[in-house]
């Protein structure tokens, strides 16, 4: 950590872990996220509408999962000058509200020339199933 409390490039090593952070997204929050983002599909708001689509109930939008994993990385970078440059996610399974989820990250590569860091990120359920997987790239400015 720097004096300002942010992650510094020199302090990053392969194998560094981000999280895990445990969360439970309740239905109200899933709906709130969908509403704020203008996602009006019933599958994000109403259990009956979701069941009409063959789902067991409302689901958490994929964008929300991407946001949570982005936040995992930006929280790790903290107030430093490093920034989230890229994130890619694959939604392998539905993410449901009211379940215990955990957010994970793991530094897989450190590139001194570009001062960038590759990170595997994922969301697990209580059974350690990876519901969302992805990779992220963070980069740091010279001298940081």
């Amino acid at each position, binding site marked *: 950590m720097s004096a300002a409390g942010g992650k510094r490039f020199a302090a990053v090593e392969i194998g560094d872990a981000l999280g895990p952070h445990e969360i439970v997204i309740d239905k109200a929050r899933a709906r709130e996220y969908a509403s704020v983002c203008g996602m009006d599909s019933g599958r994000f708001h109403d259990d009956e509408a979701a069941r009409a*689509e063959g789902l067991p109930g409302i689901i958490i939008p994929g964008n929300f999962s991407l946001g949570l994993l982005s936040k995992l990385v930006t929280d790790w970078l903290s107030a430093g000058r490093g920034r989230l440059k890229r994130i890619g996610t694959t939604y392998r399974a539905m993410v449901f509200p009211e379940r215990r989820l955990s957010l994970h990250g793991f530094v897989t590569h450190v590139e001194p020339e570009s001062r960038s860091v590759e990170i595997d990120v994922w969301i697990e359920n209580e059974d350690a199933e990876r519901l969302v997987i992805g990779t992220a790239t963070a980069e740091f400015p010279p001298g940081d």
Partner: protein
Amino acid sequence: MAFDQSLIGKEFEATQPVAVTAEAIGAFCRALGEESGSYGWPGPDGAVIAPPSFAVTFRNTDAFFHYTPRFGRGFDAGKEVEFIAPIRAGDEITLTSTVREMYEKTGRSGTMTFVILRSTLRNQRGETVAHVDHRFVHRNPGQGE
């Protein structure tokens, strides 16, 4: 399931500019649980800065859905987002979108069609702030619906 390969590379009409407000960024931060203090507050230039994932909240025009296959139950299969510049309150964001790929995959649950759509977000100065590759998947009719 055949799909129109001529759509690949097609650029759809740009969206109308969407004005980004401090209130919209604040609501997004609350919904996301963003409490770090790095976002949702004025940055060095005085403008409120949005969390990076705010970039995925901008919607395409319906034109995209008029052209691409709509069959069976569709889902968001994933995204790839390149964050180029922060989005700030006061920005006016426009999307232009292009079909990059369309392909089918067959697995245990049947055949699915994937459509990769790239959206480019630009601000009112014409600066690109993000690229978002959306990966949509549609399960073909009669296969596990």
